[in-house]
């Protein structure tokens, strides 16, 4: 997927004035946030925080032993009859899928939701090879027929209203007009069911890979992931290398935390552990199962100070909680992963110079860290990325000069007092309705701050003088 993150500010500006988007994102994020809060702390604050701590510890332990766990996972998956492939980048991952498709004479593919295939642009690669591909997650299906990209990690069409979804289904899928979400879902369900039955290959992501058993863990609510991974002859799972967890017990803990954080459910409707292809004597399941372990920049992150970002389990809680995401939606972030975690990993995966506004797309309120089920210190990473940008000389000429002048003025009390007086005089003399230069945006939404006629230090010194006089 093409990176358009340097366009964040104008894209956000457009989103802010998009009434439909505002209605939909506000409703969706608020609902996700509230449900998460209720589910996470249903057993009390202490229990919820303990779950977070355990989840955080498991993911950090897994990251600390990543290389060994990957080898263990590979060996155990192979022992289960799963064919394991490695992809250094998106291109190689797509080539693997195309090669598998050729090998098994695949004409038609059904997909369940996978963010890593958004990174690799798999759908385009399949279509270019004349292989029909259909997204079967309802949200992803709507994204696909609308020619869009997902705007949220777990709720791909959180930016769309019910009405815009209706219009799209009527226009692109010949749905008989209806306003009822239940009827719309039934319509899509019928349509998807036929394609499931006809598909040669199912492509899924993977929420977890359990190293000790060589299993693929998937959570889903619509049943489409189970159909995708069991009906077609061939199942291919593309999984980021950071999704490895050591044991089934770890998996069990994380599957408590993921749905609670993502959708506010104690458990998703379908929670699957896939242990390989159809065994002799079994009546269903694919004949061939492949797992493609995708790096695509992750091992680079692993070598940096930002390795902790790889602990992310893609729950989307930081998106729902983020006051910036709540007003911009996801597309403004310009790549696969939006919101606070996207503001961290987009620059890391695609290059800081290609996503330089994102580290600044935060008021540093800290909500993302508060709601993160694995306690990733996103605000600190954003601060560190800003520092990296300045070190790279990408701070911006105006800011470079301004900051140097500001630091000079604030590193001696005499200059600080003098600077304050000049600013106060200028402000009180000019009485500007709007501020100049880069400060102009401030006065669009807020009054110009007023300097006090006497600073605190003047008031204090006058008081001290008076007291001395009295004595």
């Amino acid at each position, binding site marked *: 997927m093409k990176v358009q993150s340097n366009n964040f*500010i104008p894209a*956000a*500006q457009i989103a*802010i004035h998009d009434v439909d988007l505002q209605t939909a994102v506000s409703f969706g994020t608020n609902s996700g946030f509230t449900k998460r809060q209720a589910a996470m702390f249903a057993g009390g604050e202490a229990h919820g925080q303990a779950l977070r701590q355990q989840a955080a510890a498991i993911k950090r332990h897994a990251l600390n032993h990543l290389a060994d766990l990957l080898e263990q996972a590979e060996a155990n998956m192979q022992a289960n009859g799963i064919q394991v492939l490695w992809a250094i980048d998106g291109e190689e991952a797509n080539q693997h899928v195309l090669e598998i498709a050729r090998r098994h004479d695949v004409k038609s593919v059904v997909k369940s939701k996978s963010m890593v295939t958004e990174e690799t642009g798999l759908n385009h690669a399949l279509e270019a090879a004349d292989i029909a591909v259909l997204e079967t997650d309802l949200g992803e299906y709507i994204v696909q027929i609308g020619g869009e990209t997902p705007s949220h990690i777990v709720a791909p069409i959180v930016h769309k209203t019910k009405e815009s979804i209706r219009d799209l289904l009527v226009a692109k899928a010949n749905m008989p007009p209806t306003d009822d979400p239940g009827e719309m879902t039934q319509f899509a369900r019928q349509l998807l069911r036929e394609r499931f039955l006809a598909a040669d290959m199912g492509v899924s992501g993977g929420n977890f890979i359990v190293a000790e058993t060589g299993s693929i863990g998937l959570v889903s609510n619509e049943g489409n992931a189970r159909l995708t991974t069991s009906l077609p002859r061939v199942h291919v799972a593309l999984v980021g290398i950071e999704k490895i967890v050591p044991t089934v017990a770890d998996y069990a803990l994380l599957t408590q935390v993921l749905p609670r954080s993502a959708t506010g459910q104690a458990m998703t409707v379908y929670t699957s552990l896939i242990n390989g292809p159809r065994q002799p004597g079994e009546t269903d399941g694919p004949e061939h199962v492949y797992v493609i372990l995708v790096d695509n920049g992750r091992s680079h992150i692993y070598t940096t100070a930002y390795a902790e970002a790889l602990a992310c389990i893609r729950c989307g809680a930081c998106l729902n909680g983020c*006051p*910036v995401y*709540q*007003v*911009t939606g996801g597309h403004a972030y310009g790549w696969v992963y939006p919101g606070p975690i996207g503001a961290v990993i987009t620059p890391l995966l695609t290059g800081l110079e290609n996503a330089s*506004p994102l*580290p*600044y*797309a935060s*008021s*540093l*309120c*800290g*909500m993302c*860290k*508060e709601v993160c089920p694995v306690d990733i210190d996103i605000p600190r990473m954003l*601060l560190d*990325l*800003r*520092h*990296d*940008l*300045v070190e790279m000389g990408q*701070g911006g000429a105006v*800011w470079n000069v301004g*900051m*140097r002048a*500001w*630091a000079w003025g*604030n*590193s*001696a*009390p005499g200059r*600080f007092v003098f600077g*304050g007086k000049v600013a*106060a005089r200028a402000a009180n003399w000019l009485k500007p309705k709007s501020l100049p230069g*880069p*400060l*102009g*945006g*401030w006065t*669009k*939404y*807020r*009054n110009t*701050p*007023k*300097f*006090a006629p*006497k*600073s*605190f*230090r*003047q*008031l204090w*010194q006058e008081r001290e003088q008076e007291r001395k006089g009295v004595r």
Partner: protein
Amino acid sequence: MAIVDRPSPKGKRVSLFVTCMVDMLYPETGMSVVDVLEHLGVEVDFPLGQTCCGQPAFNAGYRAEARQVAVQFLKAFQDAEVIVVPSGSCGAMVRHEYPHLFADDPRWRDEAQRLASITWEFTEFIVDGLGVTDLNGRLPTPQTLAVHDSCHGLRLLGLKQASRTLVGSLENATLVAWDNSEICCGFGGLFSVKMADVSGAMLGKKMAHIEQSQADTLVTGDVSCLLHMNGGLAKQGKRPLVRHIADVLAEGIHKVKK
């Protein structure tokens, strides 16, 4: 109540770090802080060498510039026994960031750690530091108040209860619960300049929440949030009802409870 594992500040002279914004924009709030502390029998001192904590540069990624300004803070407060600051944000800068900022600087590392350990946010100092939960004060007229939890105070210093305890101790004050107390107003320092439209949209949401609160006064511990929210309300022709907690408390202590 925040967990305090720092030297007790009781009976010590307080050096006030008033913050650059209070110094230039809200000096009366600084005087309110002094009034409340002196009302509690605390000796207050104002080191004249102080400027800013350095957070604007730090948050913008300019660490060399932040260090340059922070060094001035370390110099200004070198004789301090206890530092009190009427801001959760500037307090968090000193408490959390200074030790990182000077971790590799042998000249300033120890002093940065010492000053971090003796720095208290204003309400936290009174309630957790001094153990005072009732100011024995009274507001001139009955008022309904809600609290806006400033993000850095809430999430970096663990402040939540102290401000409510103190406001709630005033006669004539009715504290109302407010669902949106923990939602950012969108200020974020330079964020409100760099991403003025996004910040403005966040402010718009916050102002809608303020209207739903039914409060006469919205109390906050940071003048930066106050500047932002009142600036937005005034721009829309609405009553700027946000006040710094020190001003509310100072008003209360001028009248003793009946």
